[in-house]
């Protein structure tokens, strides 16, 4: 059983693509071998900057011979049919066998497919794999047409038998023949060498300064860097992403630790770390006592006669140039903040376009400020502090530091707000208003941060809704789904009680004002601005709009609002946008709650209830219903409801009327009928009290308690009696039961 070794040797493969490529080579080759009938013992893929390799051990030397028996025509069939069969089966007539069957004598052919040597199959499949390799980006070079991630220089492909005898697989792709040679390190290798097996390959690579396994390179870097830091009384700052990348940039890792110039140690640690990681791919080394970053670790690809002194000096010099830039930015930013404050820094934002339809960053900040002020009272935050926080929260976008390192946005805002001496809540809001950015990022909890964070996200959502740039399918270029989930997570994490609809309406209207400011008449904009102010009083846009228009009409100051006017356009489009955006948020909430184990039908039953724009209430209801349905009482509630509802619905459909006229206890005949009136009379105030207190579990417990009375009623009383007065009264009674139960959730939507 031979072993297979493949190496594809090329110019430097991007670090980020190596691991995936090694895995793809392994998967595609082993799948193809198995498909061709070649089973194997084990396989492993490898990648370094200059090579992809695959070792397969215990491969079958030849694929098994297969036999297939095929039934043909009868012996007396027309000649043409028999010839057709021979052609199809690829056999001659004398190879056919005649068997007696019930219907007469029939021809049979046995088709034998002889096994093929492994080398032949490997050659065929490897060529296909190379030609169709799934690189994220590939290229051509020279005058050839082959595509690879970077120019492919050589192919090593050998089969090694049990005696250790290696044979080159006969293969040539675009003028590159497969062979049994490769080379080691670009600078420390001794040139080309031949290999006879995987062990030989691995050992000779190591001799020529190449560590084949990425994990071994990473382990070496991590341990050596950790040891050097420890020896200096320091500790390495963990960075798995950087470690993986650096392991893909070297074949022979040489770890060197260097000093950061004294001048730069006063920079914020995040700035040092970001600059070193992004520009130089350096690890940071921290003083565990002070938490300050004091040194760096770089990983070279070569051992030198001076033990890396020249390399380290060069790296230090480059780092100094980079950090001089960072220090220059930091000092300029601080000077600006001390002179003019963050508000001064934010000035230029009126020149920065947020989106060509949605105006400048300054316009956006003004909208966020207005909304965050609206939100502040409901969050128990100081309105003016929230307003100030909103106006300065994005000022750092104008800082030189964030221009250079966009990933430091928010964090620099916090530093600069602290430098200006702004309240800690405001400094925190500068950083936290972007949160939550992903599943691992927590939602903010400080009231000021919460107000600005919510306003920021709602402004983004309403803005893109207003210009009809909603996410579709896999396309979500403005990360609106993330913004929607952010709104939900902030509300739920803080147990916020907000009628979201009102704030969505107000912000949609602000977006419309931005959009129409230049084409609408000033009277129209003034009117809309009045409406924004009044939405809070009326709860929704529509009512506020009508109130303002009525008042203006009464004063004879109402602008023209006929067809084609901006006012008319806003009046008709805004409520639809608002409903649509809330539905989007509800969809995101469904996804979020499903991940938390709440059934989709339970959520659906709660979404249609009043005040569904209060997400905390909605979730409370859904959680209570979900828990309740799992209990015996829940089963009682559901069955009692369903029984009443089924009979009533059938009758309503048959009669074409809705039985919503109150039932009258005086028509109750039997004790059971009287009992249910009494039970309802007793239950209803209790349910109302529980609902008032938002104690959904208690309300449902009371409803569940009705079941014995309901069951007894159905046992004793025939609903569809001939007496129409009695029948109507009983149907109206069922309606009373149904209506009572529907107060907690739309139980008709519950499955099972």
């Amino acid at each position, binding site marked *: 059983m031979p072993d297979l070794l493949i190496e594809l040797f090329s110019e430097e493969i991007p670090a980020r693509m190596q691991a995936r490529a090694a895995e793809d080579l392994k998967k595609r080759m082993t799948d193809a071998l198995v498909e061709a009938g070649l089973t194997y013992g084990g396989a492993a893929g490898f990648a370094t*900057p200059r090579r992809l390799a695959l070792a397969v051990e215990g491969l079958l030397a030849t694929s098994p011979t297969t036999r297939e028996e095929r039934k043909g025509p009868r012996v007396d069939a027309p000649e043409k049919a028999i010839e057709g069969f021979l052609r199809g089966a690829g056999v001659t007539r004398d190879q056919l066998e005649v068997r007696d069957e019930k219907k007469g004598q029939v021809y049979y052919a046995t088709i034998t497919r002889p096994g093929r040597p492994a080398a032949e199959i490997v050659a065929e499949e490897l060529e296909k794999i190379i030609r169709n390799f799934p690189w994220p980006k590939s290229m051509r*070079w*020279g*005058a050839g047409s082959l595509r690879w991630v970077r120019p492919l220089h050589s192919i090593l492909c050998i089969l090694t038998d049990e005696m250790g005898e290696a044979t080159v697989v006969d293969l040539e792709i675009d003028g590159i023949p497969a062979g049994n040679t490769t080379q080691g390190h670009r*600078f420390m290798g001794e040139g080309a060498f031949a290999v006879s097996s995987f062990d030989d390959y691995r050992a000779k690579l190591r001799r020529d300064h190449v560590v084949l396994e990425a994990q071994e390179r990473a382990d070496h870097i991590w341990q050596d860097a950790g040891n050097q830091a420890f020896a200096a009384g320091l500790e390495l700052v963990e960075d798995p992403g950087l470690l993986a990348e650096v392991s893909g940039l070297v074949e022979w890792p040489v770890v060197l630790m260097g000093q950061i110039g004294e001048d730069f140690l006063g920079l914020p640690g995040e700035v040092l770390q970001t600059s070193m990681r992004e520009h130089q791919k*350096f690890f940071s080394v921290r003083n565990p006592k002070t938490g300050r970053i004091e040194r760096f670790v770089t990983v070279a*690809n*070569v051992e*030198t006669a001076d033990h890396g002194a020249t*390399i380290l000096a060069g790296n230090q010099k480059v780092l100094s140039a980079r950090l001089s830039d960072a220090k220059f930015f930091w000092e300029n930013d601080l000077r600006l903040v001390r002179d003019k404050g963050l508000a001064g820094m934010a000035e230029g934002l009126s020149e920065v376009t947020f989106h060509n339809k949605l105006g400048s960053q300054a316009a956006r900040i003004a909208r966020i400020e207005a909304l965050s002020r609206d939100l502040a009272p409901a969050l128990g935050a100081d309105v003016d502090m929230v307003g100030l926080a909103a106006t300065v929260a994005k000022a750092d976008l104008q800082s030189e530091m964030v221009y250079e390192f966009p990933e430091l946005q928010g964090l620099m805002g916090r530093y600069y707000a602290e430098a200006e001496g702004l309240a800690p809540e405001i400094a925190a809001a500068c950083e936290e208003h972007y949160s939550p950015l992903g599943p691992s990022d927590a939602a903010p909890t400080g009231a000021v941060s919460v107000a600005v964070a919510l306003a920021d996200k709602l402004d983004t959502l309403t803005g893109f809704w207003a210009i009809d740039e909603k996410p579709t399918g896999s396309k979500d270029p403005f990360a609106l789904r993330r913004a929607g989930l952010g709104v939900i997570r902030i509300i739920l994490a803080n147990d916020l009680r907000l009628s979201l609809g009102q704030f969505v309406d107000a912000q949609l209207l602000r977006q419309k004002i931005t959009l129409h400011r230049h084409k609408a008449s000033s009277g129209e904009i003034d009117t809309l601005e009045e409406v924004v102010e009044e939405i809070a009083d009326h709860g929704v846009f529509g009512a506020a709009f009508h109130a303002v228009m009525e008042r203006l009409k009464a004063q004879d100051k109402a602008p023209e609002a006929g067809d084609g006017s901006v006012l008319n356009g806003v009046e008709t489009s805004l409520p639809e946008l608002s409903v649509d955006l809330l539905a989007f948020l509800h969809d995101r909430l469904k996804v979020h709650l499903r991940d938390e184990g709440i059934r989709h039908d339970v959520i659906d039953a709660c979404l249609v209830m009043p005040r569904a724009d209060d997400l905390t209430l909605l979730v409370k209801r859904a959680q209570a219903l979900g828990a309740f349905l799992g209990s015996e009482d829940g089963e009682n509630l559901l069955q009692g409801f369903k029984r009443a509802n089924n009979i009533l619905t059938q009758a309503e459909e048959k009669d074409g009327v809705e039985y919503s006229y109150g039932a009258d206890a005086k028509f109750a005949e039997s004790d059971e009928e009287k009992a249910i009136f009494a039970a309802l009379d007793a239950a209803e105030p209790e349910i109302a009290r529980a609902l008032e207190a938002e104690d959904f579990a208690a309300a449902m417990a009371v409803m569940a308690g009705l079941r014995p009375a309901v069951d007894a009623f159905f046992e004793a009383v025939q609903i569809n009696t001939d007496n129409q007065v009695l029948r109507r009264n009983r149907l109206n009674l069922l309606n009373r039961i149904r209506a009572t139960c529907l107060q907690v959730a739309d139980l008709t939507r519950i499955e099972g």
Partner: protein
Amino acid sequence: MAQTNGKPRSFQEIILRLQTYWAGQGCAMMQPYDMEVGAGTFHPATTLRSLGSKPWAAAYVQPSRRPTDGRYGENPNRLQHYYQYQVLIKPSPPNLQDLYLGSLKAIGIDMDLHDIRFVEDDWESPTLGAWGLGWEVWCDGMEVSQFTYFQQVGGHDCAPVSGELTYGLERLAMYVLGVDHVMDMPFNDPAAPIPLSYGDVFRQTEQEYSRWNFDIANTEVLLRHFEEAEAECEAILSHPYEDPKTGQRIVMVHPAYDQCIKASHLFNLLDARGVISVTERQAYIGRVRALAKKCADAFVQTEAGGYAA
């Protein structure tokens, strides 16, 4: 005369050694293009010659201008006018990486002491409608060159593929010479009768251009020139290939491409003056790209571009 071994001693010696090295590798030693460009890639010896099927090998120094990088000669590393060294070989030879490493040795970088790395960096020029794959080359953590295999230029697939090397000469020289501020770098041999530093040659011009680029350049004039260059480029290319006077087929690619280069530089100047908004930027870049594409379309209709009657 430039020494051929040991450490170079001046900025110009590094240039001379690169010239000697690449001449020795068979490249045509071109001279800088006589127009203002943002990078060596704009030289027709690269942009246009990377198109079509004809083999090509050229190397040259190209003065490059990036008005927004002006720092009045004060920043140790940033200049609004600097030099690039450019090599273009088509088809890219299989040993191009080795040839490149040879050029580093030629300017005194000892491979036994330094750490040379090829770090992924895909190149794209939105104004030229061009892209390629390759690396930035690091020497001891510093980027010393761009190494690119051109895949597309002016919207045309490159076949064969050109290999392009770009050295940022000031930065590379500062590293090799051990200088911390570009203005302190010896321009000629420090032992020469009249030793000149980079600052002696360029400090004043950096100040002058920084002031003009940022505050003085007449934006209305620049804008008009942009429009004119754009119109002229299109007008030139709209003429029939056959010249009525000589009766010959003469496609006027280079005169049209000069207008494209002009438009590109005028855009850079307008950008430095801060009169182009973020949204307008994309539109301007698109306009220059449209010109570059038309020039590329026309070039492949010429003999140098592989056209055969």
